[in-house]
């Protein structure tokens, strides 16, 4: 299972992804984990970054023509922005990375997010 680590940044609530070196705003720069161990340990490490992050969790991603996109519609919305205002959120930047996400099909439940809601 391919996965990406995401969270909201504490200071401004911005959706961020773990790039392997840093927390970045663009999904396209996210590190894709291929095995459970490395994903799990990165998530555990993220949970200790309490002054930078809120609610880090892993999301499933899929490969699309050499790039990746979140499997769930909800996570694609987080990576793009609201569909009623296309000039708001990350999608406002435009470009190929955004176009790939916007074209992605298939909508599955975001397990990481559902677990979060359940925990709350």
């Amino acid at each position, binding site marked *: 299972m391919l996965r990406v680590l995401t969270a909201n940044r504490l*200071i401004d609530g*911005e*959706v961020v992804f773990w790039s392997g070196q840093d927390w970045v705003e663009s999904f396209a720069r996210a590190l894709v984990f291929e095995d459970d161990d490395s994903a799990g340990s990165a998530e555990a490490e993220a949970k200790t970054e*309490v002054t930078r992050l809120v609610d880090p969790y892993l999301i499933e991603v899929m490969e699309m023509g050499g790039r990746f996109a979140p499997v*769930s*519609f909800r996570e694609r*919305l*987080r990576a793009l922005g*609201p*569909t009623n205002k296309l000039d708001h959120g990350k999608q406002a930047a435009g470009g190929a990375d955004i176009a790939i996400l916007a074209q992605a099909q298939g909508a599955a439940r975001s397990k990481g997010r559902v677990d979060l809601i359940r925990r709350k």
Partner: protein
Amino acid sequence: MYLYDDIDRRMLADRAQEFRAQCARRLAGEITEDQFKPLRLMNGLYLQLHAYMLRVAIPYGTLSADQLRALAHVARTYDKGYGHFTTRTNLQLHWIKLRDAPDILDHLAEVGLHAIQTSGNCIRNLTADPYAGAAGDEVDDSRVWAEVIRQWSTFHPEFSYLPRKFKIAVTASPTDRAATRIYDIGLRLYRDADGELAFEVGVGGGLGRLPYIGAVIRERLPVRHLLSYLQAILRVYNLHGRRDNIHKARIKVLVASLGPEEFARQVEAEWEASDKPAVDLPHSELARIRAGFMPTGFEALPAVSRRFEAAKADSRALARFARHNLAPHKQPGYAIVHVSLKAIGETPGDCSADQMDLVADLADRYSHGEIRVAYEQNLILPHVKLDDVPEVHAALDAAGLATPNIALISDIIACPGLDYCALANARAIPVAQDIARRFADPEFAERIGELKIKISGCINACGHHHVGHIGILGVDKKGEEYYQLSLGGSGEGDASIAQILGPAVPAARVAPFIDDLVGVYLAERREGERFLDTVRRTGLAPFKAAAYADAH
């Protein structure tokens, strides 16, 4: 308008200062997110999908022009230049940064606004009749009583940690424009046979997972006992409401499980045993609050404005606006003017900072400096001279705020849904936009007449789908957005819970589905029947047959 006094102002300034310190401690790592979250929620600050969301309280939906300008300033400076008015008559700002939140609360406090009790298991921001003080059919100004309850309930130590959130609505008119029957407590003020003001007290209404219409537990409560009686209700709830299951913690579940009669008996017993004079408002204090709502500055005018009548005869657009967006005012020569936040294709309830500034300026020039927020996610200028309606209409029209669709098919309630909300299962806004575009022709919409569509993106029902003439609920069907339709609901005086029509349909089928339902209505309706009346008379069968015809 009621003005906050020194105590209120100090309280708001202190609260903003306190939150600034709490934010600093969180950012410094001195408190954890689990410790901070309840503190930020007590100040209306949620973490949503893309950013923090600040829910600003608009007590009983009343704003001064200066307050609306302050909201515009905050939206422009700290958000993306707009805000979203909600079914709770609050304003939500969707793109807030935690680091800015203390400054925002300072700005709001300067004009007597805040986000206190817009979240958490406390008595939430009050709602009242948006026509209060202007409606010809009211027996009193419902905001007077809403303000009494606001002062009593703010930071009330006994009721700050209830089993679940608690919402109170007040109306003082036989026409319920505050949806009181779907509230935890719905208060309906009337004059009894002796001409005395009294409340009919409804309890246990609510939507969400378990929708209920409130039950009347007392038909006549003398107004002087309002607070002691509310205290008795809250005490019974606080003691017996369920704290073990969040889905069964609202008062509606307690009222339903005990039965309204037994619940009423317990409330009466608690009330009788209580020290009423210690809680009930002294007459002098009521008079002080009432003075803040006394009407001022109305001119003696003829009931008919020749200027307005002539302008209507010249302009079909103005005439249409007058038919749908104006309501009669109690003062001859005045009107209540609806500002539609439902322009075709736009997001229901959204208002840009520039639009807020414009409405504030119009309020100053033409409406005694007052604006109201209606739970249908529109704004209202409550006191406009008929002579001035042409100018007000022209200014609103130029800003995209004069869509003549109040209570028509494109006046759709929609929650933020999955586009913004962390709890939603499906989007609500694009569905509303699709339907509005399909019925954009104002003549067709007028021919259909009153039709209230209400859309929620999840079962929590912020979009009031249970009480829509047509209710639409977004569901997550194996990870895809589907929409379950229901018919025959109403949140008004004839309140009822809508019945589910059939299996949920994908997003692209919703608007054509509405087309089918409207077609059945137009074929079936009898003289004078609204969509809702026809549904109630015929039942769901003809609608189901047409809408699901393809499925058979």
